[in-house]
């Protein structure tokens, strides 16, 4: 019987092609959009993790409260002992210090006179020590436009945009002007070893990347850093773990009456990433919900029209001795078949669109307005097994639901009434 029904579905193109096309389109969008939006959000979280938040971040309590201003005077001192303590306790994590600072970058001419000047956003990391993976984490070697990463103290990377504006090239010298963590003036010369373009609006404006030891000396924060970032092995943010570690650490180290006591904050609690993470997780569900609803309505109507066309057939089947409940169920079987076929097409199309977007990405650095939020400038999709699985749900549910609604009239009505209305 099922074989017989399927034959009918296949041969009657108005019964199959249109609904299959609708299901395929809906599933395509579900898969593609959830992979795309999920991917972008995931990347956004990752970019934040790599550059500013870590998977967990340790700073002073006061710094954490004013983190948007990056106040140097609230830096974490005695950083080395905190770091080795954490390293002992969580040996599977990597702990790296960072210093973020601001100031002016001055470009002198041959005579030492100012040729040009601009504000700079400085970031210092442990770049000379290659074991901690900071170069890879910040993707420095791949994003260098010209030159190379710092190999010794006194070298700096400047952002490509700044370099172009100031006509700088590797080998040139720039002077940093700013203030130490105690508020006194400081300046320091750096030799440019390379120019860099992260693809991050925030870092690419006037970025200065130097080694942490230079920053500590220049800013008068021996054994200090503004932040100590912790990363999980494997680079994947693990929310439960992060929350647990932070709780343990804070129970021991945080003293709410001492603004210089240290506090650990997991990624999720920084930069409003919680919303981003939650959205990313629920993206598939949201997409599925929207498309189930939209497609069901369309398919309901398609089912109604299809039902009208088939009244004669239903009448004959009633007369041949098929119970109306069985006819109704056979409609649902047909719908399931159509839903599966449409979903397979939709999944194939969705993956065909999403996988290239995952591999090659879409460069949107020109389109996205500059913002303080760290967003990836190359949008990528993220295809996961659950994306594929999710794709099947709306197609099949929508088709069966649409058909169930459309066929409900058949189920509800009296056989005699039905038989007459079917104009047999």
């Amino acid at each position, binding site marked *: *019987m099922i074989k*017989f029904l399927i*034959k*009918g579905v296949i*041969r*009657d193109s108005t019964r199959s092609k249109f609904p299959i096309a609708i299901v395929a389109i809906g599933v395509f969008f579900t898969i593609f959009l959830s992979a795309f939006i999920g991917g972008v959000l995931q990347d956004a979280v990752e970019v934040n993790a790599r550059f500013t938040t870590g998977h967990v971040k340790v700073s002073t309590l006061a710094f954490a409260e004013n983190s948007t201003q990056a106040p140097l005077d609230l830096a974490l001192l005695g950083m080395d002992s905190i770091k080795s303590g954490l390293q002992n306790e969580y040996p599977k994590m990597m702990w790296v210090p960072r210093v973020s600072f601001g100031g002016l970058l001055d470009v002198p001419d041959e005579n030492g006179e100012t040729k040009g000047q601009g504000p700079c956003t400085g970031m210092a990391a442990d770049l000379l020590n290659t074991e901690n993976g900071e170069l890879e984490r910040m993707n420095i070697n791949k994003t260098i436009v010209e030159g190379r990463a710092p190999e010794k103290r006194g070298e700096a990377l400047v952002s490509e945009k700044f370099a172009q504006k100031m006509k700088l090239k590797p080998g040139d010298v720039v002077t940093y002007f700013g203030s130490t963590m105690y508020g006194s003036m400081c300046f320091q010369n750096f030799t440019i070893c390379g120019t860099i373009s992260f693809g991050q609006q925030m870092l690419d404006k006037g970025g200065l990347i130097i080694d942490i030891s230079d920053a500590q000396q220049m800013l008068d924060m021996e054994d200090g850093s503004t932040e100590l970032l912790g990363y999980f092995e494997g680079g994947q943010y693990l929310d439960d773990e992060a929350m647990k570690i932070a709780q343990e650490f804070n129970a021991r180290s945080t003293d709410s009456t001492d603004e210089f006591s240290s506090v650990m904050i997991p990624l999720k609690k920084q930069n409003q990433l919680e919303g981003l993470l939650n959205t990313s997780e629920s993206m598939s569900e949201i997409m599925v919900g929207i498309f189930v609803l939209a497609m069901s309505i369309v398919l309901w109507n398609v089912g109604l029209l299809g039902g009208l066309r088939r009244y*004669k*057939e239903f*009448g*004959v*089947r*009633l*007369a*041949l*001795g*098929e*119970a*109306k*409940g*069985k006819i109704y169920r056979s409609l649902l079987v047909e719908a399931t078949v159509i839903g599966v076929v449409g979903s397979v097409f939709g999944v194939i199309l969705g993956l065909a669109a999403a996988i290239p977007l995952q591999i090659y990405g879409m460069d949107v650095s020109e389109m996205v307005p500059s913002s303080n939020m760290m967003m990836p400038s190359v949008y990528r999709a993220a295809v996961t097994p659950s994306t594929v699985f999710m794709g099947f749900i709306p197609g099949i549910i929508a088709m069966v639901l649409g058909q169930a609604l459309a066929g409900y009239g058949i189920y509800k009505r009296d*056989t*005699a009434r039905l*038989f007459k209305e079917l104009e*047999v």
Partner: protein
Amino acid sequence: METIISIKNLTKEFPVGDGAFVALKNINLDFKKGEFAGLVGPSGSGKTTLLNIIGSLDVPTNGTAEIMGKDIAGLSHKEAAQLRNKYVGFIFQEFHLLPVYTVYENVEFALLLQDIPKDERHKAVMEALEWVGLTHKKDAKPSKLSGGESQRVAIARAIVKRPAILLADEPSANLDSANAHNIMQVMVKLNEELDTTFIFSTHDEKVMQYLKRIVHLRDGGLEKDEWIKEATV
């Protein structure tokens, strides 16, 4: 001969507006196994309504209709469907073949509702097509058939499960004279060979010629129950 259809004091009303329209009034009728009978009367006299009740597609308002010993008013949807499936074949004025299926599949469809193994189905379908002389058209789609051929496929579909009762509602209305005679001859033959009870609804003289019993209906009432000794053809 055994009585397989027994109708007693049957009345059928249809709700119309606030009142009711009486389509059949106080009908008393029996049909025995192997009869070749017709309900005859002008349009609107209640022929189709009575056939539908006999076919357990509808139920009486008052009185009883017993089909194969079962009072159809007491049957659930499912039981009524089973009764139709097992004992009743229908033939319609407009053939009502399923357009997406071949001739063979249209006939086979009637058997799919019963759990009959495939090779047995095949045998039964081919035999039914042989009776109506259409084995050579078994792979054709209904759209490629003439009216006469279509009605013969419909007969094969109705007869393939060997029902005890075959109900034919104005089967000749869409056929020319030659085809009308042809299908009637086929049905006479089936009636003789398989002992199937045939009940027609008709106002066509060509059909009436073949009937051995004519039940005259008028305005929902039984006007005359006439037995014909020798069929006129």
